């Protein structure tokens, strides 16, 4: 098992933080994992991209040309990184912000209005968790429980409410994609 995964969006959407948590979670769950950020010079509003690799075997190169999964959190990042999704790959879009017609026919598309769902749950900041939930629901990269325990660890010092809302977001993403399988 080896997954290469691009997560991309704009600065402030939690691209890096979800990438780090996801890779760390996999690493702590016994997989080989690497996280590689690509920053623009901006702190907010610029493009943010990270590459996460999760593998049963040692990761030699952390710089794949193409990835098996692309999670695009906004229109700009979809347009910029869709050429980096390999043939037969999985595209997960935040359809609240990706408005383009998806033109590639050689890929599997999962379209989730993550921002709208996030607002329904009660916090605009959890779109990234919903999208990761979708990935975990659709693939066998990582057990959702393993990821959830990393989230609980990450927010251990914050209010229980934050953990609760993240769990709700994760569950929602997983549920949507379980239904698609």
């Amino acid at each position: 098992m080896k997954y290469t995964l691009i997560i991309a969006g704009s600065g402030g959407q939690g691209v890096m933080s979800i990438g780090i948590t996801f890779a760390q979670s996999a690493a702590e769950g016994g997989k080989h994992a690497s996280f590689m950020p690509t920053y623009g010079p901006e702190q907010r509003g610029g493009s943010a991209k990270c590459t996460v690799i999760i593998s049963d075997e040692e990761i030699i190169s952390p710089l794949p040309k193409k990835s098996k999964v692309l999670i695009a959190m906004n229109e700009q990042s979809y347009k910029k990184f869709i050429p980096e999704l390999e043939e037969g790959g999985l595209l997960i879009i935040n359809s609240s912000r990706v408005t383009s017609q998806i033109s590639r026919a050689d890929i599997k598309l999962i379209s989730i209005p993550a921002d709208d769902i996030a607002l329904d749950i009660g916090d605009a900041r959890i779109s990234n968790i919903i999208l990761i939930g979708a990935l975990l629901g659709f693939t066998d990269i990582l057990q959702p429980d393993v990821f959830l325990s990393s989230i609980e660890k990450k927010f251990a010092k914050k209010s229980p409410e934050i953990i609760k809302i993240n769990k709700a977001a994760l569950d929602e993403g997983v549920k949507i994609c379980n239904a698609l399988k």
Partner: protein
Amino acid sequence: MAKQFMKGCEAVAEAAVLGGCRFFAGYPITPQNEIPEYMSSRLPEAGGIFIQGESEVASVNMVYGAASTGTRAMTSSSSPGISLKTEGISYLSGAKLPALIVNVSRGGPGLGSIQPAQSDYLQSTKALGHGGHRLLVFAPYTLQEAVDIAYDAFEYAERDRSPVMILMDGCLGSIMEMVDLPPMKELSNQNTQGWKVGYDGVKRGARMITSIYPEAGLESNNKNSAAMYKKWQEEDVKVEEFMLDDAEYVVVAYGIAARVAKQAIMQLRGQGCKIGLIRPITLYPFPKKSFEKLNYNNIKAFIDIEMTIPAQMYDDIDLLVRGRAPIFEYGRSGGILLDDDGVTDAIKKVTGGQA
């Protein structure tokens, strides 16, 4: 200690602290800012001192001062900042002071780009300042290797009374991987007892740390350094030789480029291509013996792969290959990173698609 999922800059900083670093001075520059950021909280916790200097030049000279007292001292920067520090690095060498310098390199020349690049090979190996001095230059390719090297860097530096450099590009600085951190080293000032300045409870004659020799003494110092550099070549070369036994094509790459190249080599081997890798871990001393022992009757070509244009290691390879096989080069620069497909295709161009 336990395994931890860490960012490259932080892992190398932590390893330096575990290896005895108790003084850090530096000045901000991307992509190495996580080193001083980490040190600013970690060093006080470990009983050390962190200073953000007013400039690179000030910072490296603060390291000079701290190292003079036998304190394990370190600075870090990224390419243009290292250029500024080279005056001080030359002074450290001239004054025979141990120190650790980390370069998390980015694109150049000039201010270049903030993205990762391997554009400082020539600077690191040939001229980290004026005066014809050399440093042991280590180029790790995984975070674990970076941790292991940083952990032992001060032992090398104190053994030789000479600064040590770790050259890691911005990719290794920002990537996160699992690392196994070693235990905190017991600090012993045994190695610095004979020369360090400052009162340490022992009555003794005055000492002076200096890099100026107005009268005699400089030449004998230089001769000692020359002998030391020769000894490094005999005893301190670190290199990985990968799948070279039957190799017809030999890739030469270090750091992040070696990771991408190794993946390509494994893929091409799977397709029947007889290809191997020489990966210098010490860039200086360069692994000459790895080239000397190759069977040149077998070898059709060398391919120098670096994340910079033009390739900078080329001349060192050329001196050893001496026309016995052609040397090709492939690189990317200007904020564009090497990638698996690009490197594989570049190698296939040389092997004639034989793969």
